[in-house]
């Protein structure tokens, strides 16, 4: 196992590469989740803001 991790002396380079890919994927996936939650929050805010306008007129207006 230790020998495998050493990658014939190139362990530092190989695992720095794969490690950064792992970090990049995690950062992107966590960011996606957060983006989604923020989007729904903004949607709720915007709709709440416009709710009074809609109450005045008939039907929903497109932005």
């Amino acid at each position: 196992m230790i020998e495998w991790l050493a990658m014939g002396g190139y362990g530092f380079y190989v695992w720095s590469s794969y490690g950064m890919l792992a970090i990049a994927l995690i950062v992107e996936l966590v960011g996606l989740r957060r983006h989604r939650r923020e989007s729904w929050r903004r949607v709720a805010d915007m709709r709440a803001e416009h709710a009074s306008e809609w109450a005045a007129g008939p039907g929903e207006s497109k932005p």
Partner: protein
Amino acid sequence: MNSPVTPSGSIWFRYASPASFYPLAGRLIPWFGAAAAILAIAGLYVGFAVAPTDWQQGEAYRIIFIHVPAAWMAMFTYLVMAFWCALSLAFNTRLSAMMAQALAPTGAMFAFVSLWTGAFWGRPTWGAYWVWDARLTSTLILLFLYLGFIALRASIDDPRRADRASAVLALVGVINVPIIYFSVRWWNTLHQGSTISMTAAPKMAQTMLVAMLLMTLAAWAYTIAVALYRVRSIMIEREALSGWVGDLERKAGPAAPTLTGATTR
């Protein structure tokens, strides 16, 4: 959509509207996500457990299994992004601009990963993390194009104006992609030539090639899954006041953004 009058029984037109694309994308995400995971596991298995040690580079060559797929994905994603930008400029379609916007961060991520892994491959094989070589420099420009695209969008408040400005930037920058691709042929570079080509036999062992192609397919599936996920967030925000987002909001309850993700809304 259900109107029998429209000639567009064609699936493409049916799903060109955000209201009908949103649920379709939600159904597709788990499939592409699962495909990405399975292909990546298979690719890593073949790459580390089956593929032999390179006679010249030892184990350092195993970086290829992520370096080449990341570089290909960064270039290809840019072409797809530019394609959506061209559509949005030509036809002023809402969805195509949103697709371009959804692809940019993932393209930037892959461009960064290709530069990073290239640096950690270059050090043991060339003796330097970075050289101002044609291919490396043009790939760095690709990363800056992605970042510029994202920054330009973020700096313009009106989404339709942001669509147009960023689309022009993306289309001007598309010239960089063939420059990256052919750079190893046009200039005398330190970067090695194509590992595989359409016309010649691959210059690598069969198992190495299989691992690299599995990882490439994994990158494709990942990019599709992530772009679909991101475009859904972009869609609801940009169409926040339209009826279909209201329906979704009412269905799920406004204060309950679920953590489980894709298919719930």
